[in-house]
């Protein structure tokens, strides 16, 4: 028996999400009195793989093959399933990100394993296996029992405090059976040097109250100063002031940074659904009755365009 955790890599490196996953999996393994096995797919060097041992991985299985260079959901799913079966995993943990959302449902069918999508804390019990997850886009939560023998959980990003617990896991290079690749990937475009919205610990976000796309300089400057990502509300991306990748809210990105600064955002229920898991929310808005103040921890009533420059100055003073 084991708890299997799959982590992707980013150009051969792991990131915080990987350690959150391994740490989370090791806690479940403790609850089940079993070991934590990590699966890495792709070209990752041994010293990078060893880092996973810092978060209580007991064993690392590394699968590398040229056919796995690009993500083919079907092929990746069969590799994870093969390793899950080999390691007799009763729980499989995957990230609730683009790749995880693409693979977990397929794996659920392949292993006939119930899926708990987007968990943010440990199961309340393992017998019955009861998880706690957001529903209605964060307007509520539900307690869900997974009834199948094997369970699959996807873990929401930045939701679980990972802990160091150093072990020296054995690394096994495993030759998995690679099926037919039916998809072809080309023209990969990646922004470099920019903090990704989903990874960001701080997010500075603007709404219609910023009045036009030309007014974004203070948002960007503040973000730069704080090492934050930039985001926006739906009307802003609909108007084309900002790219739709920045839209946070129910139908855009759902994020959970440590600090979310909402400038000129009124806080429609759909917007709040996307940001309400943030650990601290600051709202700047001219309308004292704007719903954003109900979700916020700190608020200033005023015009964001006037307040942001002062904000920038004040941050400069402490940096």
């Amino acid at each position, binding site marked *: 028996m084991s708890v299997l955790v799959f982590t992707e890599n980013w150009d051969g490196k792991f990131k915080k999400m990987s350690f959150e996953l391994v740490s989370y999996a090791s806690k479940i393994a403790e609850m089940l009195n079993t070991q934590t096995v990590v699966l890495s797919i792709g070209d990752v060097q041994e010293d990078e793989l060893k880092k996973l041992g810092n978060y209580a991985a007991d064993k690392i299985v590394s699968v590398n093959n040229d056919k796995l260079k*690009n993500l083919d*959901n079907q092929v990746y799913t069969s590799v994870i399933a093969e390793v899950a079966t080999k390691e007799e995993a009763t729980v499989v943990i995957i990230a609730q*990100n*683009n790749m995880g*959302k*693409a*693979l977990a*449902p*397929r*794996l659920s*069918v392949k292993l006939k394993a*119930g*899926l*708990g*999508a*987007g968990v943010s804390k440990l199961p309340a019990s393992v017998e019955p296996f009861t998880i706690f997850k*957001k*529903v*209605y*886009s*964060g*307007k*509520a939560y*539900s*307690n*869900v*029992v997974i*009834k199948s023998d094997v369970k699959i959980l996807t873990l929401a990003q930045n939701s679980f405090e990972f802990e160091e617990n150093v072990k020296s896991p054995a690394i096994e290079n495993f030759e998995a059976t690679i099926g037919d690749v*039916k*998809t*072809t*990937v*080309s*023209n*990969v*475009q*990646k*922004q470099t040097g920019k903090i*990704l919205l989903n990874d960001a610990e*701080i997010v500075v976000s603007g709404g219609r109250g910023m009045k036009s796309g030309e007014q974004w300089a203070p948002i960007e400057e503040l973000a730069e100063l704080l090492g934050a990502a930039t985001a926006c509300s739906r009307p802003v991306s609909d108007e084309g002031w900002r790219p*739709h*990748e920045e839209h946070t809210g*129910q*139908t855009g990105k759902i994020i959970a940074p440590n*600090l979310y600064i909402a400038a000129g955002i009124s806080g429609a*229920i759909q917007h709040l659904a996307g940001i309400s898991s943030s*650990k*601290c929310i*600051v*709202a700047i808005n001219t309308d004292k009755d704007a719903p954003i103040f109900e979700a916020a*921890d*700190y*608020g*200033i*009533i005023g015009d964001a365009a006037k307040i942001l420059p*002062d*904000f920038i100055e*004040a941050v400069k*003073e*402490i940096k």
Partner: protein
Amino acid sequence: MKILICLSNVPDTTTKAKFVNDNTAFDTTGVQWIINPWDELALTRAIELKSDAANSIDNITVITVGGKDAEPTMRKALAIGADDAVRVDAEPKDAYYVAAQIAEYLKSNPFDLIFSGIESADYNGSAVGGMIAEFLNIPSISAVSKMNIENGQVNITREIDGGTEDVTSELPVVSIVQKGIAKEPMIAAMRGIMMARKKPLNVVAPVEIEALTEIVNFELPQAKPACKMIEPENVKELVSLLQNEAKVI
């Protein structure tokens, strides 16, 4: 080419979540039901693609798993421009159950392109599309933000961490779509609404499938403490609170 769109009938996105029966059931009192927003974008893109004769799309079918109360939403999809609709007559138990029902339908009614929204606004499982693909052992592409057809070949752009990549796939394929796939959802015109009444809405019986998960109950989020207000001329104080009290900068 035939397109199938998996639709979910969900509460309007402005709905406040309330529960009844000891927090075991969603309170549907006064709720407006809509096509799940991502499914609506998928439908919009399918209609746009069909309007170009060069794409040779013969038919757009919408399918849902739900009770009779889902029919107004299906009629709405027909009014927007779907050609026919299928309702698998069962209460959706979980994503696995729903996907199994749709996969079963697809086994005897093949389609080339299957669309599903990246998640549903109710259970947020992001699951049905990928599950259907696995049941049928066909490719799936997730987080799709663009889709075109060229010489019978489907060209897809999907979002990856910090960027995009272009993907082509053998058909049939399940395309799991997100924001960007269509600009704005199409709205039904009066003519469409009239025509929708005559379009076929077929009801099929479900197959026996056991759900793998079960909701025990719901909880509402805990009320947040009141927002601490800071005077606009005291931005320094705010920054100091963020640094020393909240410890987030």
